[in-house]
């Protein structure tokens, strides 16, 4: 239960030259091709095993929603097929079919049935739904007096009242206030642990990386990459900055990690390294040890403006800390071809035990989106070990000052 197989899936919308063309196609026998097909999704193939958590990413218009609609069954595919085993629940549009004049309880009943539960099932789940939504006495008041957050809470509670075999989530992770966001995210995670197959569409890197085993990247209606979330996320990031002559290169290192390098290449990084206080490049760092990130840069052409940014990422690819010289108020201007620069950033490695990587980028203005000279993921990797501190967990070293009164 919960397997999804997508086979050669494609979706095209019919476009007619004019309004009468459709009529002609419908009623005149023999007249066939009066419409041209506008493909929004083509040649999509993937299989998801029961219990897997897969993230779908892509820029707006890449075809994510269309793909989800075909998987949930609201839209029919033009080519290919989708096979799903088990019960599917989709958090695509929360609160559909809520009627403002009816009470939360009545609407929950109705929404539950619309999602395919029987009346008795909803009846049985009702205490559960009420408890999870935490909207108190409002449950018996008309929905029109609810705040939008309350409506979302109720809708989410109904939609996830019964654990489905497949759960499809479309950016609905931001439900209500941050307390409820955590709560709803925990529920989705718990479903995953209990064996629900999760399919999540989001632009939020963190939610994809923290929950998914695998990610699928859609670009212009095609499946452009599939694999480990961190690598796919890096590639996606590079695509975001894709302009005409940009090259995106991914290489797999000896350790099996995928490195993404992209950019227009007017100016590049020669070397990126983590050094100790003496300037010696190191790969193992003690918790709290003062270190320097050193970046050597070579300009191949004249560039008007240069910003250097870097992000320290944990093992899962989640950003731990990142900034750039724009935010540090130190961007360079009018760089001539052939000039070399060396940046160094000193900081104490207040990081938890584990493996970390550094992504560095050369670009203009505050993000790499507008003009990306070079973006280098896994530019440097290092391990943090605990040499002289007491045991602790987490990605940060936040030494507390303890005090106890009794």
């Amino acid at each position, binding site marked *: 239960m919960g397997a999804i197989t997508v086979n050669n899936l494609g979706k095209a*919308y*019919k476009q007619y030259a004019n309004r009468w063309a*459709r*009529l002609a196609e*419908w009623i005149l026998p023999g007249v066939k091709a009066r419409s041209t097909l506008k493909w929004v999704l083509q040649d999509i193939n993937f299989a998801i095993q029961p219990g897997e958590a897969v993230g779908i990413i892509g820029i707006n218009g890449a075809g994510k929603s269309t793909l989800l*609609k075909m998987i*949930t*069954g*609201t*839209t*029919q595919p033009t080519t290919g097929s989708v096979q799903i085993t088990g019960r*599917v629940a*989709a958090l*695509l*549009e929360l609160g*559909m*079919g809520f*009627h403002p*004049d*009816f009470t939360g309880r*009545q609407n929950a*009943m*109705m929404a539950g*049935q*619309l*999602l*395919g539960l*029987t*009346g008795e099932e909803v009846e049985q789940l009702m205490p559960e739904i009420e408890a999870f939504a935490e909207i108190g006495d409002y449950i018996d008041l*008309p929905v029109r007096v609810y705040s939008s957050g309350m409506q979302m809470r109720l809708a989410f509670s109904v939609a996830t009242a019964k654990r489905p075999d497949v759960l499809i989530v479309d950016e609905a992770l931001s439900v209500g206030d941050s307390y409820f966001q955590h709560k709803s995210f925990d529920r989705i995670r718990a479903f995953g642990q209990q064996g629900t197959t999760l399919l999540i569409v989001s632009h939020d890197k963190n939610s994809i990386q923290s929950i998914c085993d695998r990610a699928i990247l859609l670009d212009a209606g095609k499946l452009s990459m599939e694999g480990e979330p961190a690598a796919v996320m890096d590639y996606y990031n590079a695509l975001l900055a894709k302009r005409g002559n940009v090259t995106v290169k991914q290489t797999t290192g000896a350790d099996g990690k995928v490195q993404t390098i992209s950019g227009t290449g007017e100016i590049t990084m020669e070397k990126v390294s983590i050094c100790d206080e003496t300037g010696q490049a190191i790969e193992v760092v003690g918790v709290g040890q003062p270190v320097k990130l050193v970046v050597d840069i070579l300009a191949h052409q004249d560039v008007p403006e240069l910003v250097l940014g870097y992000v320290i990422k944990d093992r899962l690819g989640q950003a731990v800390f990142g900034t750039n010289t724009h935010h540090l108020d130190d961007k360079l201007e009018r760089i001539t071809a052939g000039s070399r620069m060396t940046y160094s950033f000193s900081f104490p490695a207040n990081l938890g035990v584990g493996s970390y990587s550094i992504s560095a980028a050369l670009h203009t203005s505050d993000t790499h989106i507008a003009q990306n000279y070079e973006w280098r993921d896994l530019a440097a990797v290092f391990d943090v070990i605990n040499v002289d501190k007491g045991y602790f967990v987490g990605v940060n070293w936040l030494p507390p000052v303890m005090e106890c009164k009794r």
Partner: protein
Amino acid sequence: MRMFAALWGYRGFIFESVKREFQSQYTNALLGAVWTIIKPLSMIVVYTVIFSQIMRAKLPGVDTKFAYSIYLCAGVLTWGLFTETVSRLQNIFLDQANLLKKINFPRLCLPVIVVTNALVNFLIIFGLFTLFLIFSGLFPGMAFLALIPLLIVQTLFTIGLGVSLGVLNVFFRDVGQFFSVVLQFWFWLTPVVYPISILPTAMQKAVQYNPMTAVMTAYQQVLVEGQWPNWASLWPVTVLAVLLCAFGLRLFRQHSGEMVDEL
């Protein structure tokens, strides 16, 4: 068949929706459900009191006081059911576009909800009318039972026509506009408010080709004269109803996938 099995699985939803639609009309009204009776009642009063007492309208050939009033009610109430249902069915997929695009559920639920809802409203008003017949001593007797098959034929005809128009209207929005014009003419080309006998002979023949003529005439025959309807005259409309249903279903199955793309 799978389509109908899916519908059966959603019977709870259909029932709730009908209930909700019925309730939503008066949840915020002080008098609540009373309005569902007041409105149709006032309509019956208008037809009975005004036409029989004030205008003293008479039906040619029948000489009782309420004859024309009953004739009117028999036609107007059932015609009302027909037009209400057809006009809601032809817009059903457009009205519920949001739901269709976002949630995967058996789409045939929507027409079923509309038809059931219209029938419930009709049964309330017609129940009141029946009470009036009983108390005024004009109840037609056993022939009243003929209304059941008549309503079934009319409903089938309505569903077939309505679903076909509903699907077509998604692709060609002219259909909805056009059909509301057609309904105007159709009303006056059907003996609903006038007896067919007042028409010139040539017109009478033409009006016979109108499938609703047979149904309306049958209602009037039962309710005004207390006679069993002429079953043979109902064959064409029954066959047409079945054909329309088959056509509508086929149209729906062929285009229901494409429909969502157009909404």
